[in-house]
């Protein structure tokens, strides 16, 4: 027993998944259920003159057809924005409405105009084709920068110039001065392109209203069932919260796209009450492409100021960030607080200014996608850093070392206060870089590159030294910045009479392996076996009000709530043990699953204490029976993982194809509970970041049509796109949470995109290519090589 922390314990949850016995939303069915299909706009911007549902309603097997008129009459407003980011001049953020079904005007391809409910999905599909919508097609705007121009098509009448907010952070004046006095300025302009998350399981909902109990149940694909319940019950459908149960069973990947309480799911739940029967809806992939919230879509100008010595003296960015056609739940905080505040990176840059204009466009809404703001910030910084190093002729590793924040542990040395509001908790940035240089054999790589180049081969090395902010908190601070929710988490620990333990977790696992990691932590804490602990998550009826899983927060925030409950169990257990051992709790120490009187061999085991707590015959006076505690944990600060990734590529001169020859990742996520799971998170993160660098990107035409809205057109990484990644780590514990952990879910994605692009640009250095628009497709690379670096 014990010593599970730090071990690569095999995952408990795998037992069901490898046998095909996972239970995802679409695997559930209810008696008497109906099937729904949304009818969606084929146009990006159009006025609806008329919707004729009569033929569809008349079809055999059609239960009901709803349109925007029904929704409007029911007084339902649609999903909400959960973070208010006001204009820098003090004006309030613009918040256009987002109806569940559109009645007057569609604003992106995929905007729903009708909901067909039928006895089976075949009838629903057939009937949906009979719905005739008369549209007047209007001009659309898809480019975030063009959207603010006078005369650009307006997405919402109440959002002038399509501006949701204009926001800034940092000191403009000192940054201006830094640039005025700069010895060298590096400038880049790019589009951090729009990405489609494509979790392999499409979104789904199974909604039911039970009139006997006056109660709703919603099975859905959510990363955070309690948050979904709160938004749906309190803000969208006005259901008393205790009358709604949200169950998020096994979920097939999220990457951010399943954080949000989508209108589609709300519509299913609402309609189930109207028709008095359960309704099932599962999105097609084509539907997912035009309805799941996309990521990124930042158009950015970025500049770095240097002194003559190669020290960074200032950084400035101006970004137009697309929100898409409507404000999704957390869309507004992504380009502001999750992006702007990270813009100092892990450098000592003394002056930073970030200016962000958030705009609506006629495209699918944009919200948090793996990394959420931090990849965009890191891309800007790390592309500038690498470009600057090249421009001044310094080795990119040396240039970074010259500008790194020195190591600090956050305990004996204070946290590091940046120019853009954050206080980093602990870090040893040079340590991670040095380890990566060693693991990758950087000197050897440089000689290989020389040799390759002498033979005319295009080999390149790219770095990315990143820091990210996870476990966003504390609630009071985020509240003061406009968040309309708290950002704590919750967990309870129920010790059963026989000494077995159930953890009820507010965090939701959809690939992260909580059922294993959380059990490891608790089993170790109590000195019991993994088999003695199980984890329950994903059902609002069974778990405390936690905020769910996103932003690499589960272990740092929910894990801390678990540890608080562990402490409470141990404290009470000690009082019970002390009673049994006839001593004071202060005389006891807990180790190896037992309380022992210090300096003696007198002890009582965890199981004995648990049994005593539930069979309290011989029991401390005044002590309540039971051993069951819930805790909420609101972190003191974010956690700040960091690291260095090094990518080595070779370009096929003839075709422009990029091959990754080697990829080294050294990450520091503080203490590691399960290295196998941590490594898996890094692998997946790298792949997704490489996806952005080389393959992925939503392409819209000027009319607002998504041109690559299927998996046949939108390229995602496959197994044969990668070499074996080499991963390693350094450990700089987080000083402010009980496990000393940071977060690793997004690190790979944040780090890898600029590492890959930096490597490709390095490989193209003989062609005078300074920058290339992502994704670096073979065509783009080839054209850059064959057109003096221009496209």
């Amino acid at each position, binding site marked *: 027993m014990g010593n599970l922390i730090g071990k690569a314990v095999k*995952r408990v949850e795998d037992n069901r998944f*490898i*046998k095909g016995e996972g239970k995802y939303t679409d695997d559930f069915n209810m008696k008497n259920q109906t099937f729904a299909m949304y009818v969606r706009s084929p146009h990006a911007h159009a006025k609806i003159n008329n919707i004729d549902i009569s033929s569809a309603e008349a079809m055999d097997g059609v239960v009901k057809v709803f349109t925007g008129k029904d929704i409007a009459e029911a007084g339902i407003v649609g999903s909400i924005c959960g973070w208010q980011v006001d204009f820098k001049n003090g004006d309030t953020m613009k918040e256009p409405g987002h109806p569940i079904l559109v009645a007057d005007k569609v604003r992106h391809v995929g905007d729903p105009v009708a909901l067909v409910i039928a006895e089976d999905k075949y009838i629903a599909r057939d009937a949906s084709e009979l719905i005739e919508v008369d549209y007047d097609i209007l001009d659309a705007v898809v480019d975030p920068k063009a959207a603010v121009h006078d005369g650009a098509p307006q997405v919402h009448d109440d959002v002038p110039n399509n501006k949701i907010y204009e926001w800034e952070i940092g000191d403009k004046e000192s940054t201006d001065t830094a640039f005025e006095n700069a010895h060298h300025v590096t400038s880049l302009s790019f589009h951090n392109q729009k990405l489609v998350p494509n979790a392999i399981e499409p979104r789904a909902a199974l909604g039911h209203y039970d009139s006997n109990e006056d109660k709703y149940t919603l099975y859905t694909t959510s990363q955070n069932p309690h948050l979904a319940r709160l938004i749906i019950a309190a803000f969208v459908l006005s259901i008393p919260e205790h009358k709604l149960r949200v169950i998020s069973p096994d979920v*097939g990947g999220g990457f951010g796209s399943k954080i949000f309480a989508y209108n589609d799911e709300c519509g299913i739940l609402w309609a189930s009450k109207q028709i008095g029967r359960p309704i099932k809806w599962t999105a097609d*992939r084509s539907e997912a492409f035009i309805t799941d919230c996309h990521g990124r879509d930042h158009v950015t100008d970025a500049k770095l100021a240097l002194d003559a010595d190669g020290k960074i003296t200032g950084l400035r960015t101006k970004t137009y960030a697309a929100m898409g056609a409507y404000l999704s739940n957390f869309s507004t905080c992504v380009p502001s607080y999750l992006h702007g505040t990270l813009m100092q990176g892990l450098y000592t840059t003394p002056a930073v200014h970030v200016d962000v204009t958030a705009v609506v466009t006629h495209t699918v809404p944009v919200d948090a996608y793996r990394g959420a703001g931090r990849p965009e910030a890191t891309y800007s910084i790390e592309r500038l850093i690498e470009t600057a190093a090249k421009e001044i002729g310094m080795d990119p590793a040396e240039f970074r070392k010259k500008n790194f924040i020195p190591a600090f542990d956050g305990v004996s040395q204070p946290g590091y206060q940046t120019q853009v509001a954050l206080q980093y908790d602990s870090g040893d940035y040079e340590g991670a870089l040095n380890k990566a240089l060693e693991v990758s054999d950087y000197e050897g790589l440089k000689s290989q590159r020389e040799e390759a180049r002498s033979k005319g081969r295009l080999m390149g090395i790219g770095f990315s030294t990143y820091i990210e902010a996870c476990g966003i908190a504390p609630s009071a601070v985020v509240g003061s910045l406009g968040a309309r929710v708290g950002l704590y988490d919750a967990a309870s620990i129920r010790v059963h009479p026989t000494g077995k333990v159930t953890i009820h977790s507010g965090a939701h696992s959809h690939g992260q392996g909580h059922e294993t990691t959380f059990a490891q932590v608790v089993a170790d804490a109590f000195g019991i076996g993994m088999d003695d602990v199980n984890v329950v998550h994903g059902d609002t009826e069974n778990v405390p009000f936690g905020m769910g899983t996103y932003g690499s927060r589960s272990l740092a925030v929910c894990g801390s709530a678990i540890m608080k409950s562990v402490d409470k169990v141990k404290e009470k257990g000690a009082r019970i043990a002390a009673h049994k051992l006839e001593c004071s709790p202060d005389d006891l120490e807990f180790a190896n699953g037992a309380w022992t009187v210090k300096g003696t061999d007198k002890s009582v085991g965890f199981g004995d204490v648990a049994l005593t707590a539930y069979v309290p015959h011989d029991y401390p006076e005044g002590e309540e029976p039971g051993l069951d505690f819930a805790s909420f944990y609101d972190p003191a600060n974010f956690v700040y993982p960091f690291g260095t990734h090094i990518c080595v590529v070779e370009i096929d001169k003839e075709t422009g194809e990029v091959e990754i020859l080697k990829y080294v990742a050294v990450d520091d996520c503080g203490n590691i509970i399960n290295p196998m799971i941590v490594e898996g998170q890094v692998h*997946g993160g790298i*792949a997704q970041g490489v996806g952005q660098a080389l393959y992925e990107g939503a392409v819209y035409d000027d009319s607002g049509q998504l041109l690559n809205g299927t998996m*046949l057109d939108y390229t995602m990484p496959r197994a044969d796109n990668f070499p074996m990644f080499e991963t390693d780590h350094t450990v700089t514990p987080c000083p402010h949470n009980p496990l000393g952990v940071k977060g690793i879910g997004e690190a790979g994605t944040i780090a890898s995109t600029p590492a890959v692009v930096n490597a490709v640009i390095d490989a193209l250095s003989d062609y005078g290519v300074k920058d290339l628009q992502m994704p670096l497709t073979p065509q783009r690379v080839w054209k850059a090589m064959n057109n003096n670096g221009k496209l």
Partner: protein
Amino acid sequence: MSFTINLTVNGVNYNDVIDTRVLLVDYLREKLELTGTHVGCDTSSCGSCTIHLDGKAMKSCTMFAVQADGADITTIEGMCQNGELHPLQEGFKEEHGLQCGFCTPGMIMTAADLLKNNSKPSEEEIRCGLDGNFCRCTGYQNIVKAVQYAADKS
């Protein structure tokens, strides 16, 4: 329009009158309640729906169930033999070849066919052999290792 099919799935014979336009994957999931076979796309791209039909890996979303009349089908639920995990199932667990688990059944079915035709595949052969399956979680590395684990074991 209906049609009668007779087929074997995981060793069990079924005789059903079905609507001709029911896809094989929907027949398996909805009629036989074998929900381990998943649907991740609508363009025959993602491979989540991979099953074995007469011993060969195929995408059950790209067939009408009527086309499987007379076939012998194995789904992920049929991979355990006498309560023993298939070496690939074991490999996916041992090598952490899955995270959310959604693509896993399809990956295992594709890999099983790959190993049947090539018992000692190289890393490159494994990676290319999995071209018809997307995983968004793992970066594929541990999936490759899981297949190597199974190859080494058998």
